[in-house]
C-alpha cells in the first residue's frame, strides 16, 4: 500500500502534491487512530487486571519495621513498668516501677515533662501493676496500704490551627487513692481492673494469703458526689508461690501462674469466687517464662524459656467454657519481653539479642523476623494505632516505625480452616463486620467460593442438557422457518435483565416451588419420561398418519404435551403431598430427611440462573453445530448411516469443541452472575451441597458488602481479591473457550 502511494506520488503534477500530502496525512492519522483504538480494548482489559492486582497486593505484603530514632534516658532511671505513645506517635512516655512518668518528644528527643507521683513522707511503692495495653493505666501499691491508680492521657488542642498535644498523668479516682487497709504494709503481686464504676484489686499479703478487694462507685444524687464502697474477701486455697498474676479488664477472671499450672478464678461476684479451671501448661523440660493476655483479653499467651509461645482460649465444652490449648508459635529465640497490640491479635516478641518477631495469632503466621540493633531489651510496647513500637534497652528508648496494615489476611486465613476465639473448632467463616467493637473480622473466602461453585453447578445441571439438546435440534433437525423464529427469541432471552429473572425467582418462583414441591420433583421425572414415551408412540405410528401432519406441526407437537404434563403435576401435587409427605413436604424434608429447608434455595437459583445461562450455551453450541460443513453429514447419509448415526458420530463429534466452548462460556457467566443469586438465595455462607439450602457467592457478597467497606481497609482489599478471583475464573473459562472456538473455525474452513 505504502509503496504504491509513493509510486503514484512521483507521477503527480506539482499542483496536486499539496493535496496529496494532505491525503497522505489523513491516511496516516486514521491508521494511527484506529490502531490506537484497537489496542485500547486490550489496554482496558489489562488495566482492570492490573488495577485489581494493585489494590489486592498490599494484603500479601510482609510487615516491616524501620528504626525512627533513639532517645537516651537518665542514667539513674529505675526499671521500666510501662512504655507507650500518644495516638499520633508524637510523644513517647515511660513509666518506671515507682510510678514516675517521663514524656519525651519523638522528634526533638526533649524531655517534655517528668512527673513524680506525690507520696507522703516515708511511704514507698511496694508493688506496681499494669492494665491491658489499650487502657494505658497503671496501679501502685504503697507501703501504707493504699493503692493509687494513674492513667496516661493526652489532651489535644488547636491553638492557631496547629495541633498541640499535651500529656498529663490523670488520677481517675476522685479521692486519688483507694485504701485497702491501714495495717497492710507488705502487699505484693498486685493486679487490678478498672472501670469508672468498679475497681478490683487482687494482691498477696505477706507472701501468704491472696485477697480480692472490690470498690463500687455509688453516686449520691443529692450532693452530686460519689462514694466508693469496699468489699474484701480472701481467695481460698490460692497457691502461695505465684510467679505471675493477670486479671481480665472486665474484672471477671483472675489468672495465677504457679509453676506449671495456671489457676483460673471466676471473680465476677465477690461472694462467689470459685476456681474455674487449672490449666496444665507443662511442656517437658521447658519452663514457663511469661504469661500474657492478647488484645480483647480472651486469649492467654504462655511463653516458654525456649521461646515457644502457646495460645489458650476458652472453648465451650461439656463442663462449660474451658481454656484449651489452641496453637503454638515456633519461636526459637528466648523471649525477653512480649508486647500485644491494642486492638488486633498481633503480638511482638524480642530476644535478649534483639531478634524481633511479629506474630499474628489467628492466622498462626509469623509476619516478621528481624534483627534489631540493640541488646538486652527490658520493655516493649505498641503505639495505639499499631504503627510504631518502642523498646527500652540499655537505658535508651528505641523507636521503630511498623508497617503492618493487614496482618489478619494471609493465604491460610483466606482458604483454610481457622480457629477463631470462642469458636468450638476451626472453621471456614466469612463474617466481615459486626456490631461489637472488639470484633475480629473473619475473612475466609472458602465458603464464598463454595457458594459460587454450588450456584454455578446447579445452574449448569439445569441449563446444559436443555441448551445443548435444544441447540442440536434447532441446528440439525429444525426447519429454516422455525429456526428463524427460535434464534431471535433466544437472543431476546439472553438480553433479559438478570434483575428481572432474580426478582421473578425470589418473589414468584420461590414461594411457588415451596408450595408445590411434589409437583416440581414430579416434573423432573415425568417430563423426560413422557417425552420419550410420546416419541416412541410417534415412531410406532403408521407412516400414512405421520405424513398427513404438516412439518411445522410435527416440530411444535411437544409443546402441548409439556404443558399437559406440567398442569397434571401441579394438579396432583396436593394429593401426593397428603399421601406421601403427611400433608406438608417442607415439614417432611426437615423432620424425616433431616435437611433444613430455605425458601430461597439452590434449586431456585439453579432454575433462574439456568434461564440466564441457557441462551449463552444455546447460541454458541447451535452456531458450532450449524456450521459443520454440509458435505460431511451428506456424505455420511449417502453411505447409509441413519440420521441418528450421522448426528452422533459425525456432526456432534465435529462440533464437540464448539459445544465444549459453549459450556465453558456458560460456566463463566454462571460463576459471575450477581443479581439472581442476590435475590434468589438467603445469602448465608452455608457450606452444604443440599439443593434446599441457600449459599452466598463471591459476586453477591461483593454487591452486598462493597458499598459499606472502608477504603483501603483489609475488608475492602479482600473484596477486591474476591473480584480478582472472579476475574481469573472467568478469564480462564473464556480464554479456553475462545481459543477452542478459533481452532474450530480454522478447521471448518480447512474442511
Amino acid at each position, binding site marked *: 500500500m505504502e509503496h504504491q502511494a509513493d509510486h*503514484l506520488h512521483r507521477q503527480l503534477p506539482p499542483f496536486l502534491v499539496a493535496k496529496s500530502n494532505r491525503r497522505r496525512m*489523513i491516511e496516516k492519522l486514521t491508521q494511527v487512530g484506529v490502531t490506537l483504538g484497537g489496542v*485500547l480494548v486490550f489496554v482496558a482489559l489489562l488495566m482492570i487486571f492490573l488495577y485489581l492486582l494493585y489494590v489486592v497486593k498490599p494484603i500479601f505484603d510482609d510487615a516491616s519495621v524501620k528504626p525512627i530514632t533513639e532517645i537516651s534516658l537518665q542514667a539513674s532511671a529505675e526499671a521500666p513498668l510501662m512504655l507507650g505513645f500518644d495516638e499520633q506517635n508524637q510523644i513517647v512516655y515511660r513509666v518506671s516501677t515507682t510510678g514516675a512518668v517521663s514524656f519525651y518528644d519523638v522528634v526533638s528527643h526533649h524531655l517534655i515533662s517528668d512527673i513524680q507521683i506525690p507520696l507522703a513522707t516515708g511511704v514507698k511503692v511496694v508493688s506496681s501493676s499494669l492494665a491491658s495495653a489499650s487502657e494505658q493505666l497503671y496501679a501502685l501499691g504503697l507501703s501504707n496500704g493504699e493503692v493509687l491508680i494513674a492513667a496516661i492521657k493526652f489532651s489535644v488542642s488547636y491553638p492557631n490551627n496547629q495541633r498541640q498535644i499535651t500529656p498529663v498523668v490523670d488520677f481517675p479516682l476522685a479521692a486519688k487513692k483507694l485504701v485497702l487497709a491501714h495495717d497492710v504494709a507488705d502487699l505484693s503481686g498486685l493486679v487490678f481492673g478498672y472501670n469508672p464504676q468498679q475497681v478490683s484489686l487482687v494482691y498477696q499479703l505477706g507472701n501468704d494469703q491472696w485477697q480480692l478487694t472490690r470498690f463500687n462507685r455509688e453516686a449520691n444524687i443529692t450532693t452530686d458526689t460519689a462514694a466508693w464502697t469496699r468489699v474484701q474477701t480472701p481467695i481460698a486455697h490460692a497457691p502461695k508461690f505465684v510467679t505471675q498474676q493477670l486479671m481480665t479488664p472486665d474484672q471477671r477472671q483472675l489468672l495465677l501462674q504457679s509453676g506449671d499450672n495456671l489457676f483460673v478464678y471466676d471473680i465476677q461476684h465477690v461472694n462467689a469466687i470459685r476456681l474455674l479451671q487449672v490449666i496444665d501448661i507443662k511442656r517437658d523440660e521447658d519452663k514457663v517464662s511469661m504469661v500474657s493476655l492478647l488484645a480483647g483479653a480472651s486469649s492467654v499467651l504462655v511463653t516458654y524459656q525456649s521461646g515457644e509461645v502457646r495460645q489458650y482460649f476458652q472453648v465451650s465444652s461439656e463442663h462449660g467454657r474451658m481454656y484449651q490449648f489452641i496453637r503454638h508459635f515456633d519461636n526459637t529465640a528466648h523471649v525477653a519481653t512480649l508486647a500485644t497490640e491494642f486492638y488486633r491479635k498481633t503480638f511482638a516478641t524480642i530476644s535478649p539479642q534483639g531478634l524481633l518477631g511479629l506474630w499474628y495469632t489467628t492466622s498462626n503466621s509469623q509476619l516478621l523476623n528481624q534483627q534489631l540493633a540493640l541488646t538486652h531489651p527490658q520493655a516493649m510496647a505498641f503505639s495505639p494505632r499499631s504503627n510504631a513500637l518502642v523498646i527500652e534497652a540499655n537505658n535508651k528508648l528505641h523507636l521503630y516505625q511498623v508497617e503492618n496494615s493487614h496482618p489478619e489476611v494471609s493465604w491460610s486465613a483466606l482458604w483454610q480452616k481457622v480457629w477463631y476465639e470462642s469458636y468450638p473448632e476451626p472453621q471456614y467463616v466469612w463474617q466481615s463486620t459486626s456490631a461489637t467493637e472488639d470484633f475480629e473480622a473473619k475473612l475466609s473466602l472458602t465458603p464464598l467460593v463454595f457458594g459460587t461453585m454450588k450456584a454455578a453447578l446447579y445452574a449448569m445441571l439445569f441449563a446444559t442438557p436443555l441448551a445443548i439438546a435444544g441447540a442440536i435440534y434447532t441446528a440439525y433437525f429444525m426447519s429454516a422457518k422455525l429456526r428463524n423464529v427460535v434464534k431471535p427469541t433466544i437472543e*431476546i432471552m439472553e438480553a433479559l435483565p438478570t434483575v428481572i429473572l432474580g*426478582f421473578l425467582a425470589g418473589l414468584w418462583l420461590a414461594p411457588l416451588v415451596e408450595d408445590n414441591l411434589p409437583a416440581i420433583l414430579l416434573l423432573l421425572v415425568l417430563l423426560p419420561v413422557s417425552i420419550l414415551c410420546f416419541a416412541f408412540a410417534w415412531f410406532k405410528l403408521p407412516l400414512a398418519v405421520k405424513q398427513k401432519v404438516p412439518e411445522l406441526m410435527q416440530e411444535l407437537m411437544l409443546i402441548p404435551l409439556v404443558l399437559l404434563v406440567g398442569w397434571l403435576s401441579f394438579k396432583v401435587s396436593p394429593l401426593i403431598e397428603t399421601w406421601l409427605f403427611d400433608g406438608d413436604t417442607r415439614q417432611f424434608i426437615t423432620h424425616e430427611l433431616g435437611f433444613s429447608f430455605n425458601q430461597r434455595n439452590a434449586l431456585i437459583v439453579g432454575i433462574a440462573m439456568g434461564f440466564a445461562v441457557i441462551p449463552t450455551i444455546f447460541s454458541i453450541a447451535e452456531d458450532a453445530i450449524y456450521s459443520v460443513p454440509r458435505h460431511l453429514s451428506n456424505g455420511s447419509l449417502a453411505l447409509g448411516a441413519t440420521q441418528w448415526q450421522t448426528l452422533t458420530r459425525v456432526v456432534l463429534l465435529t462440533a464437540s469443541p464448539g459445544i465444549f466452548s459453549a459450556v465453558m462460556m456458560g460456566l463463566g457467566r454462571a460463576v459471575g452472575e450477581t443479581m439472581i443469586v442476590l435475590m434468589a438465595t438467603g445469602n448465608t455462607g452455608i457450606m452444604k451441597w443440599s439443593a434446599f439450602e441457600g449459599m452466598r457467592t463471591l459476586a453477591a457478597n461483593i454487591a452486598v458488602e462493597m*458499598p459499606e467497606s472502608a477504603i483501603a481497609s483489609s475488608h475492602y482489599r479482600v473484596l477486591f481479591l474476591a473480584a480478582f478471583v472472579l476475574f481469573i475464573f472467568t478469564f480462564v473459562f473464556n480464554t479456553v473457550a475462545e481459543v477452542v472456538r478459533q481452532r474450530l473455525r480454522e478447521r471448518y474452513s480447512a474442511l
Partner: protein
Amino acid sequence: MVTRYLVKTGNRELVGLDFRWILATNIRSRIEPKDIAIIERSKNGFFYGFPVAVVENGQRLPTTDKQQLAQQLAANISRVSTLVDEAKSLQKHDIGNINYQLEQLRLDERADKLNGSLTSAKQHAYLAQTEALQQSYKILEQALFELRAQASRDSIVMLDMSGKEVSLKLNTVLDLTYPNQLNWLQKLAQWGSGLAKFVVDDPREANTEGGVFPAIFGTVFMVMLMAVIVMPFGVVAAIYLHEYASKGPITKIIRIAVINLAGVPSIVYGVFGLGFFVYMVGGSIDNLFYPEALPTPTFGSPGVLWSALTLAILTLPVVIVSTEEGLSRIPSSIRQGSLALGATKAETLWRIVLPMASPAIMTGLILAVARAAGEVAPLMLVGVVKLAPTLPVDLNFPFVHLERKFMHLGFHIYDVGFQSPNVEAARPLVYATSFLLVTVIVALNLTAIGIRNHLREKYRALES
C-alpha cells in the same frame, strides 16, 4: 383445601396492618356498597370509607344528596391539589434554586480562602450576595407557608369501616374515586390515569407508592451518557480488528480480550469502577478542582458519570462485535472498487465503509443500550441510590450535574422488591416496574434484530 384470601385493608392509621390473610370459610357475607370511596393519599396509603361531608374552615358544608357531595368533593380536591402542586413547585424549584446558590457561594468563598485570594472587598461582596439570597428566601418561604395554610383549610369527613366518622385533611388527598360506580370505560380511564401517574410521578412512602419517574429519567440519562462514551471506542476498535489488523498474534490477543471483556462478570466492572473511577480518578479530580468542598466529595463519590463510564467498558464488546459483523457483511468488491478508483484506505473507510456500516453500528448501539439499561450489579457500587433527592439535570447552572447519584429502574426493582419494609404493598409497583423495564429492553432488542435482518437482506442482494 381451604382458599385463603390476602386482603388489603388500607386505613393504615386505624388498623396498623396493611394486609391480612382471611380464610374463605370464615367469610359470612360479602357486599359491594355502591358509594364506597377509595382515597389515594400522599401519606399512610389508601383510605377506604364512605364520604360524609366536606369541611371548610372548620364548617361543614351543607349537603342534600350524594350527587352534590361528590361534586363538592371534586371541586375542593382540585382546588387543594392545585395549591399543593404550587407549593411543591415553589419548594422544589425556587427555594431549591436559592439553596443551591447559597451553597455555591459558600464554596466560592471557601475556595478563595484556600487560594489566599479572599480580600475584604470580596468577602463583603459574598456577604451581600448571601444576604440578598436569604432575603428572597424569606419571601419565598412566606409564600410557601401561605400556600400551605390555604391548602390545609379543607378536610373531608369519612365514615370508616367501624361506622365512626373520621376527618382527613384534604391536602394529603391525591385522588378520590367511587370504584363501584364506574362503568368499564371509566375504569379504563382510571387505569390509564394510574398508568400515567406511575410514569410521571415521584415515588412516595419509601418507594412503595407513587411513580417511578426519577428512575426512568436516571436510567435514560445514564444510558445516553454511556452511549456517547462507548460509541467512538467500540466502532474504532471494530474497524481496527476488521479493516486494519493483520492476521497475527496481536490481533488474536485483542480478540481474546474482547471476548473476555464480554465475559468478565459485571460485578467485577463495578468493583473496578468504584476503585479506579470513583476513588482514584474522582478523588484526584476533587483534590485538583474541588478542594473547597472537601472533605465532602464531589466527584470522589459514586455518581452518574462513573456509572456511565463503567457501563461503557462493560458494553464495549457488544458494540465491537455488532459493528464488526456489519463490516464483514460489506462485500470486499465494494472496497476494492473504491481503492481501484484511487481512493486511499482512509477515504474508503470514511466515505464508503462507514456509511454502509452505519445501520450495523446503530444495531450495536441499541444492543449496548439494552444491555446497560438492564444491568444493576455494577451500578450498586458506582452510583445508583434508592432515592435521589435531585435529578442529574435541573435548572441550576451548569444544568447537567454528572457527579450526582441517580435512580435506576433495575435497582428500583431490587430495592423495592427485596429491601422494602412493606414488600406486600410494594408488590404491584415491582411488577409494573419490571414490566416497564422488560418492555423497553425487548423493544430495543427487537429493533436491533430488525435492523440487522434488514441489513442482511440488503447485502445479500448486493453480493449476488
